[in-house]
């Protein structure tokens, strides 16, 4: 239930005035979306690899960038951004 705990934590901080963004794999999206966290970036990655494959620095950076960009661009609560890129093993 760690996704759920993290969803609670995000909501609490946001209520207290601290902007948050969650980065997670798609598998738990339905449950997390029901909690309405403030901002979520969803990757089409395998569970346990939310940022990308080991040593795929390019993808990891891209996901982190997307999360930070969502912090800048989101104008409303409950913003969920799904990144289209499928999981890839590092070359």
């Amino acid at each position, binding site marked *: 239930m760690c996704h759920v705990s993290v969803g609670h*934590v995000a909501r609490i901080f946001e209520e207290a005035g601290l902007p948050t963004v969650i980065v997670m794999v798609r598998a738990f999206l339905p449950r997390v979306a029901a909690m309405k966290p403030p901002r979520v970036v969803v990757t089409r990655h395998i569970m*346990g*690899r939310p940022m990308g494959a080991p040593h795929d620095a390019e993808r990891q950076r891209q996901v982190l960038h997307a999360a*930070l960009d969502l912090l800048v661009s989101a104008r409303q609560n409950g913003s969920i951004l799904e990144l289209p890129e499928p999981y890839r093993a590092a070359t």
Partner: protein
Amino acid sequence: MEPISYVKAINDYYQGLGYPPYQWTVNTSAPFTPLSKPLHKCRISMLTSGGISHHTREPFNPTAKNDLRLDEVDFQASPSDFEINDSYYDTRDARKDLNVIFPIERLRELARDGVIGSIAPRLWSGFMGRIYNRSKVLEESAPALGRELLRDGVDLLVLVPA
């Protein structure tokens, strides 16, 4: 191949062990705080629930329930100095490269490149799996962490659940 329905699989597994059905939270609105300054001036902290611990500390108990332990992680720590103990997800790739679940080196690159202002001195690992005690999280653990973030002057928090 059909995708695995993790939520159903988890429900089936825990109910098979004799636990009652988990009461998933459903909220109807989301709180929202806009970013108050440009990213390149923001100080960022990060939290993972992936059971990562620095080798100088006790490892997390991989099968713990309601474990509200929360570790501070030095923002300059080396990714190879961590262990990962969590029976709740497949940790094999995160063990090969911590950045898979806790992108500490990617954060440092963004700070070096000036995309973000700075990284908070303390990052965080905790709120591991199987926390059924929602009120404890809501009323104690999260507010306690909030006070520490305030002390570090954190402008935004990135959360990466495993």
